[in-house]
């Protein structure tokens, strides 16, 4: 299965271990990420800009539709007020009728836009440090075996 996993870009710096835990859960079940962005982004955050240039946002945006279309499920970390990019990708995933898991840690003071999303194959779950892997694994398990076979 191909899993499209997205989160705010700064999480690759500020919360890399949490992202790695989610990726490890995906990999440990034998599934692939649709896109390998987390470790390169982490490297960009810690190395000088001229050693690790950011790819073009035009290219990144252009590829989103295809990347999500070719994924079987989508997992988005949407804690707090999240990001335009994450929201955009969740909307693309909804339009493509992909199963979606929205992960939040705690809740924003005034709630957030993602609290209002309501769709049959969209799951919005709050995680803790202890429950993160289990929540991701359970979601993936729901859709294992249902990916399109050629």
């Amino acid at each position, binding site marked *: 299965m191909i899993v499209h996993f997205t989160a705010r870009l700064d999480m690759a710096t500020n919360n890399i271990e949490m992202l790695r835990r989610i990726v490890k859960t995906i*990999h440990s079940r*034998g599934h692939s990420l649709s896109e390998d962005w987390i470790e390169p982004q982490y490297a960009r955050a810690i190395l000088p800009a001229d*050693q690790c*240039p950011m*790819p*073009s946002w035009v290219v990144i945006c252009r590829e989103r539709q295809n990347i999500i279309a070719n994924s079987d499920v989508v997992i988005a970390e949407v804690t707090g007020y999240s990001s335009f990019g994450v929201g955009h990708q969740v909307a693309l995933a909804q339009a493509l009728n992909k199963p979606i898991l929205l992960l939040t840690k705690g809740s924003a003071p005034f709630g957030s836009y993602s609290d209002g999303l309501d769709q049959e194959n969209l799951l919005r779950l709050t995680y803790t440090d202890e429950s993160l892997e289990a929540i991701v694994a359970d979601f993936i398990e729901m859709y294992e075996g249902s990916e399109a076979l050629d």
Partner: protein
Amino acid sequence: MVIHFTASRFSVIKNIEVLRAIVGIIHKRGHVLARDWIEPQYHVMAANINRQMSPEKVYDLNMDAIERADLVIIEGSEPSFGAGLQVATAISKKKPILLIIKKDSTHNESMLSQGAHDVLFTRKEYEGLDDVQKIVGDFIEENTFNTKDLRFNFVIDRQLHNYIRLKSFKTKKTKAEIVRELLIRDMEREEK
């Protein structure tokens, strides 16, 4: 840059540390893998999970990865039809390719891969992880270019200019878009 890194499935168990080291070098330079398959494959094989993608899907994903990649790196210490197929495909797509092989595995290597020669094809042998770091790092550095859309000056005569200008007026597209579409059409025709 997007880098397609591939190896035999059996290398994933036998040489996982080397494969992880190569992935680490790619990531440390801020580049991305075209396809995220190594860790999932390792877990599937190590845990004997009965979950494999269909061969057709594996083929499609690899061909798509080569298409999107700027560079191709192949760890070829274990004999693999799939690796050979991907080298040939990458050469036909004009992608720079690095084939690296462990020195004590070269007796397994086919004559074809030892003899392959193309200006875009590089074959290197390694002994340990330090060699791997240097070989892969140097290859990436020699082939790094900015992934932003590229520009160049395009000099044309009056006849061509008038044609593009008229087409731009009729279609309401920019001259650059028209030229891009003509190129893409020509590329697709060549691929057929």
